[in-house]
């Protein structure tokens, strides 16, 4: 096992997870224009749902994954329906929405900790020993390979949804100008509700994949959220491709950053990258 190929692989794996979070985050940001801080906790909801359905109830693993993704989506949809939508109707500022999402994140994360304790948990007994693959002189597990493939699929699916379907057209219209979209007869509140469902489901999927790769804990959403938002900002917030680009850039900078220093400093490296972008290119790579 050589170091550089392994670092490249690790960067791609980390980048894929961040990209999944950033995709959902940007999708929601594009339609609503506010930083949904509750986005990260959807990952924890997805992860814990799979843990509960597969390990505690003993359901089929694939079925549990589908349920987990759906549950994260439903919670996201519910947040929009009961919190963000009433606020939007009142023309609340973005700051109000951001603080409300911060409250939702805090409360949901604590609810998970109450239900499942705050200890770190793994799915591993259900999976058995993982197959290892050797790629370009580095080692990658089966789960990690799945992570990369799933991310690529989701990106393709989301692009198709946005640019080839009626629904995508409506979402893009709302992104451009919600007022105008409503005037031409788009039911913007309904569409934004679906956007929340899809975006949150993607975060749930990311949480599930992290669960298979390493494990889950109630606060996992916080780190994922921070990475996803940093990826979005450095790539260009609200821009689907920008988020993915930012995610892989972040993955590479983090993993090559810890080549010489210890791994706990990843968060600090990510934050430094954010600051560098805030100083020199606050709108991100893709946005002018």
């Amino acid at each position: 096992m050589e170091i550089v190929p392994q670092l490249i692989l690790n960067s791609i794996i980390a980048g894929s997870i961040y990209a999944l979070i950033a995709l959902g985050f940007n999708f929601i940001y594009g339609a609503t224009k506010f930083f949904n801080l509750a986005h990260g906790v959807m990952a924890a909801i997805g992860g814990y749902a799979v843990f509960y359905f597969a390990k505690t109830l003993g359901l089929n693993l694939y079925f549990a994954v589908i349920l987990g993704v759906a549950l994260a989506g439903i919670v996201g949809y519910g947040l929009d329906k009961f919190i963000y939508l009433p606020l939007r109707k009142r023309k609340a500022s973005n700051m109000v929405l951001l603080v409300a999402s911060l409250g939702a994140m805090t409360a949901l994360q604590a609810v998970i900790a109450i239900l499942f304790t705050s200890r770190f948990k793994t799915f591993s007994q259900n999976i058995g020993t993982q197959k290892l693959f050797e790629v370009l002189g580095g080692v990658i597990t089966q789960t990690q390979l799945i992570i990369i493939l799933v991310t690529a699929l989701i990106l393709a699916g989301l692009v198709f949804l946005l640019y080839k379907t009626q629904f995508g057209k409506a979402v893009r219209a709302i992104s451009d100008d919600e007022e105008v979209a409503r005037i031409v007869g788009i039911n913007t509140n309904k569409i934004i509700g679906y956007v929340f469902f899809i975006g949150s489901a993607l975060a749930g999927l990311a949480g599930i994949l992290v669960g298979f790769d390493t494990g889950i804990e109630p606060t996992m959403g916080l780190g994922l959220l921070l990475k996803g938002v940093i990826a979005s900002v450095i790539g260009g917030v609200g821009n689907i491709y920008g988020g993915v680009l930012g995610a892989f850039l972040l993955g590479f900078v983090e993993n090559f950053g810890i080549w010489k220093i210890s791994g706990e400093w990843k968060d600090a490296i990510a934050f430094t990258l954010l600051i560098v972008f805030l100083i020199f290119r606050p709108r991100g790579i893709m946005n002018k």
Partner: protein
Amino acid sequence: MEYLIHLAILFSIYAILGVSLNLVVGYTGLLSITHAAFYGIGAYTTAILLTKTGVGFFNSVILGIIVAIALSFLIGVVLSKFKGDYYALGTFGFNTMIFAIFLNWQNLTMGPFGIPGISKPELLSINFANNFNFLVLALIFLGLIYFIARFITKSPFGRVLKAIREDEKAIAVFGYNTPYFKLAIFSISAAMAAVAGSLFASYLTFIDPSSFRLMESTFILAIVILGGLANLRGAILGALFLILLSEILRFVGFPPDIAAQMRQVVYGVILILVMLYRPQGLMGEYKL
């Protein structure tokens, strides 16, 4: 009685945090989610100085203030160009990074094990190991900080801050260098938080990183938002209310671990409810 004194000390510490954060969030309209970082910087400065050197408590308070001002200046220089969600994101990231430093710079902070055996203050043969004396000390600090804050908000400088909140472009046109004002109030607020941290470390005689994570910043933000934005008495009321609420949850009979999580659920929900029904808080003069 001992218990009431204990609560009153906690209240004083959180009131200092609430009043100081209100200067940034309420008066200047900048959503900062990093107050616990500066609180922690004060606490760690005092803890390290009191356990490893012969520096006394009061000198450690001053050094804590200096460290907090230095760090808030560094990050503030970057953030002061921004407002709104980017400001919130930058402060969010900063809190995560400072937490990572508390956790991982083991030579200095002893990492997750925390620093035990922090001594209590002593001045002119008054020993503050007595809790009543300590309460008096904490109240004196609270009074001092309250009056400094009041002086700031009533001064011409404070009026510029409010003008920045209402319309930053307009006040910039009048020739005010707004980033300078935003940076100044951010550093002042950080210095005050550091004082609260010094009191906290010396009172508990033990600190570990878990007291200074993002959730603590959210808690302080909840104090300000619930009590009232841009109202100093509101911040004190908010601190009183949320401290009492946390204690009530303990008395209801939840086990300590669950009670801590319940506290999070409650203030998360409070943030949501305040945003939905009363975005200026109980006594606030400004809506986000």
